[in-house]
């Protein structure tokens, strides 16, 4: 098994509220995070790809190419944005869990048909104390 991990950072604002719930319920479920003015985080995003090393590039996915994909398809939507306005979260509260799953959908789509590279894992840190992961166990 060989896997390459690249870490990105972005800063974003969000409000955790759902129209499904009343104001009182939103405050009970999301606590401080439901404050209508919003708040923000410095997120860390670790993308792990696995697959054969392409003999032409010597890489699973060349880092410069991965950077371009992530910049265009993920960071352009999330960095210095209010996440509640992003279409990814039209019907989903922009919790770290939902950010993680939206990034996974986007990058799986971006990597499909790009040879043998596969998205193995995504790790999203929302604060120094909270980390969220999906995909293969490390």
């Amino acid at each position, binding site marked *: *098994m*060989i896997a390459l991990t690249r870490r990105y950072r972005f800063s974003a604002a969000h409000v955790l509220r759902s129209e499904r719930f009343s104001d009182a319920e939103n405050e009970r479920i999301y606590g401080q995070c439901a404050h209508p003015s919003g708040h923000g985080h410095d997120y860390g995003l670790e993308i792990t790809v696995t697959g054969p090393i392409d003999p032409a590039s*010597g890489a699973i996915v060349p880092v410069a190419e991965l950077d371009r994909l992530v910049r265009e398809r993920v960071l352009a939507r999330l960095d210095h944005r209010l996440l509640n306005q992003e279409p990814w979260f039209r019907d989903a509260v922009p919790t770290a869990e939902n950010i993680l799953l939206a990034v996974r959908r986007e990058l799986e789509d971006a990597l499909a048909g790009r040879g043998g590279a596969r998205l193995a894992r995504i790790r999203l840190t929302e604060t120094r104390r909270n980390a969220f992961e999906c995909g293969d166990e*490390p």
Partner: protein
Amino acid sequence: MPDDRRVRLTRSIDFSSSLRYALPGLSEAENEARFGAAARPHGHNYRLEVTVAGVPDPATGMVLDLKELKQVLEREVMARFDHRDLNRDTPWFEKQPPTPEVFASVLYALLREALGDLLHGIRLRQDEDVWVDVSGDPAPTVP
């Protein structure tokens, strides 16, 4: 059922090397067209984390004497790569450039040879934001 007394032990080393993504068969212009800025000479402060695994010896209580692991890493990695140029001073990057994937594969193969089944896996950190994990068998193909 795996032996539940199995323990993993990781030792890290730091070394610095210069490198460029450039293949001897290509011209300067071709290398730069293929590999971009990485085709120019640059360097990294690498960190290599080496994990060995096994059941501790009942007499010594150790999976592997750390002194021995230190000597292996000194001989196999530090002596070959620290303050060296990966392209000019080592024979492994003539057919494939020293990307983190290729470099990690080379290191894994060298350590597999030296440590055998004790080697569990490695993590090569090229900088704060890029790292490669290699583990298992067979070793990924190395040029």
